[in-house]
């Protein structure tokens, strides 16, 4: 059995309530943290080596140390609960089941950062989480763990819950800041970075829900202890949202020292492929990361076992590797159509592009239209190279990483499954006759 740190108490009856959470050791990490100085708390997080769980994997302690502490402006912490990446559903689960874990993590982190106002930006579609969060916040307030003069330490903090309106792009940190300010959710041009000029032009840290929740066990056990879990620079545990053609889809907490094969096959996690069908491909870290065929996801190009860690999944670069991303693990069996899947993902990015920069605004729509033709048996051979070229022209040339996130799935699908695209071109009759539910003709 892998060790559970975040989800340790998830099955306890009533754990979403303050008294039950408290009975199981809740808020003791906060009490411990308040006895340390803010810098000492940051130091623990640095020592833990924990990397941000929102997708980019940037070390959290380091991010915190970039926050401009010299400025006289107030500082802000934003908890990014906009989770909209297809294939990722861990933050929602964590908030729903363990709201107090997040609230405790927010208080500790805010204390470390010298923040007195903290926002939780909740994805618009997750309306039901807002009540849960507000209830937890009220309970923490009533018990003096939050609000004015927390536990008589003189430190005060307010947490506000803010609902998004259903835009994936508002998960990008600067778009989220704009949105919180009441503006259109367009990502900002960087520099300046939020650590210097974020919300209302004040120093701001944006962290993922899971990142902030993990601060609680880091403080409880100490950064050094936390760093011993996992392997290499992938310390601690990670929540993985497993979906696709597997027996046991769901959210799993893993220690970052197990292999992809174990995660996929063991009964503790995915429980193997549904109906025993062979594995065809895996998207390991949410829809934005490159898709890998079965042989490359289970073993690296050098024949080593691929592990569920940041480093191992990235082994081989994009030629033969991928990324851990936000931990959205999607498995595809042999019956899945990669072309259709790629079209579907591209449709998502086309729909979610904010439309600020020309490569992403125009490129995502172009790729979608070409893929839609291919999928419907109306493609031509040169469309395949065209797609690769469009994705190359978007990648790296945009304001925010959504452009890259739209380009990578297309580029990787063609890199690893070119034969399937060619099949679509060569066999329009067969492709056209496969019915996948509603196949509307694409119109602009």
């Amino acid at each position, binding site marked *: 059995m892998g060790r559970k740190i975040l989800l340790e108490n998830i099955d306890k009856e009533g754990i979403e309530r303050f008294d039950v959470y408290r009975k199981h050791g809740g808020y003791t990490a906060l009490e411990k943290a308040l006895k340390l100085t803010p810098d000492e708390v940051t130091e623990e997080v640095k020592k833990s080596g924990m990397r941000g769980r929102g997708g980019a994997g940037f070390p959290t302690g380091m991010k915190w140390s970039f926050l401009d502490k010299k400025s006289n402006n107030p500082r802000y912490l934003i908890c990014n609960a906009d989770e909209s990446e297809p294939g990722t559903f861990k933050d929602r689960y964590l908030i729903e089941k363990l709201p107090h874990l997040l609230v405790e993590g927010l208080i500790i982190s805010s204390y470390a950062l010298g923040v007195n106002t903290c926002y939780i930006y909740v994805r618009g579609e997750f309306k039901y989480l807002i009540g849960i969060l507000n209830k937890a916040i009220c309970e923490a307030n009533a018990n003096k763990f939050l609000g004015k003069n927390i536990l008589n330490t003189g430190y005060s903090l307010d947490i506000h819950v803010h609902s998004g309106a259903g*835009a994936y*792009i508002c998960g990008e940190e600067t778009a989220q800041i704009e949105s919180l300010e009441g503006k*259109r959710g367009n990502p900002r*041009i960087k*520099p300046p970075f939020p650590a210097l000029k974020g919300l209302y032009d004040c120093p701001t840290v944006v962290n993922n829900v899971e990142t902030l929740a993990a601060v609680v066990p880091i403080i409880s056990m100490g950064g050094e202890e936390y760093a011993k879990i996992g392997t290499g620079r992938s310390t601690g545990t990670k929540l993985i949202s497993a979906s696709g053609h597997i027996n046991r889809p769901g959210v799993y907490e893993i220690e970052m020292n197990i292999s992809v094969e174990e995660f996929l096959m063991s009964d503790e996690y995915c429980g193997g492929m549904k109906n025993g069908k062979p594995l065809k491909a895996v998207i390991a870290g949410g829809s934005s990361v490159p898709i890998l065929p079965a042989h490359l996801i289970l073993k690296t190009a050098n024949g080593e076992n691929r592990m569920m860690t940041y480093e191992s999944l990235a082994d081989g670069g994009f030629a033969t590797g991928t990324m851990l991303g936000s931990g959205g693990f999607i498995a595809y069996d042999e019956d899945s159509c990669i072309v259709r899947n790629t079209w579907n993902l591209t449709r998502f990015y*086309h*729909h*979610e*592009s*904010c*439309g*600020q*920069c*020309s*490569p992403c*605004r*125009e*490129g*995502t*729509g*172009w790729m979608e*239209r*070409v893929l839609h*033709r291919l999928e419907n048996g109306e493609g031509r051979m040169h469309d395949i190279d*065209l797609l690769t070229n469009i994705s190359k*022209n978007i990648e*790296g*040339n*945009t*304001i925010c990483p959504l452009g890259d996130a739209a380009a990578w799935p297309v580029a990787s699908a063609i890199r690893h499954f070119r034969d399937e695209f060619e099949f679509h071109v060569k066999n329009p009759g067969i492709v056209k006759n496969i019915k996948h539910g509603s196949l509307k003709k694409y*119109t*602009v």
Partner: protein
Amino acid sequence: MPIVTIDNHTIEVPEGTTILEAARKIGGDIVPPTMCYYSKLKGSGGKCRTCLVKVSQGSAKDPRPMPKLVASCSTPVADGMVVQNITSPEVLEARKAIVEFLLINHPLDCPVCDQAGECDLQNLSYEHGANTERYEEDRREYDKVDIGPNIQLHMNRCILCYRCVYTANQIANSRVHGVLYRGDQAEISTYIQNAIDNEFSGNVIDVCPVGALTDKTFRFKSRVWFLKPMNAHRNCTKCSGKVVVWKFGNEIYRVTARKDQFHEVEEFICNDCRYDHKQPEDWTIEGPAKLSKQSVISQNQYGNLKKPSIILPIEHRTEKQE
């Protein structure tokens, strides 16, 4: 003050200057083209990506190259920075791709577009675009809308540079002009098709790089290259009164703001000057207006003509092209 090298030209500029502004100080062919940046509009730039350049050395302190191409209009220089614009095949290739993206949802109706001849997108594709088209899918289509009595919005042609949005926000008191929806469905709009009515609203026509916002008092009156642009002024209580009047014979067809060599408005003018003063006796003529070298209408008309620089196909380019 930081010293920066752009395409082998070195210049010293104040702290905080962007690569683009530094390049403009050097001038000539090495100035990156811009479609969204506008030096007079706060916050503009960074969107269209036509001004992408390569930073082959970040600074003297940290000489590593920047991992991606950067938007020169929104990247500040650092001391010892080395930038490549037209000397980098990678940049030219990326720019060609950007032009292609910008043209995807552009109707290419130049033969009937009032902006033809003074259109930044036309000039950009002439200099940097590919000569074949790869896009075969449908283009987005909108109806034309009138925003106020004097301005027509033709969204089909819009490249979403946001310049008009910044103009409207920065010269009007209340915010009535913005962007609706997202992605390639995004559109410029006024609040419930409100007339933009403030005394400087007409400037959105001048800042629009394409023919998406046009002057209704001038629509289809004449091709711009048949007109003679003359600098002129009048005593105006609202603006400086310094304008360009576009004449055919003795008749004034339209009035616009004066533009500098980068095709940016020098001073915003009021609607009175723009729409309501079209009699020759309204204006004191100063002399012919200088047109930017890229402008199609500058060819054959006035002095300081410059042959358009020939952009070599990428394969014929060497790293250091003089």
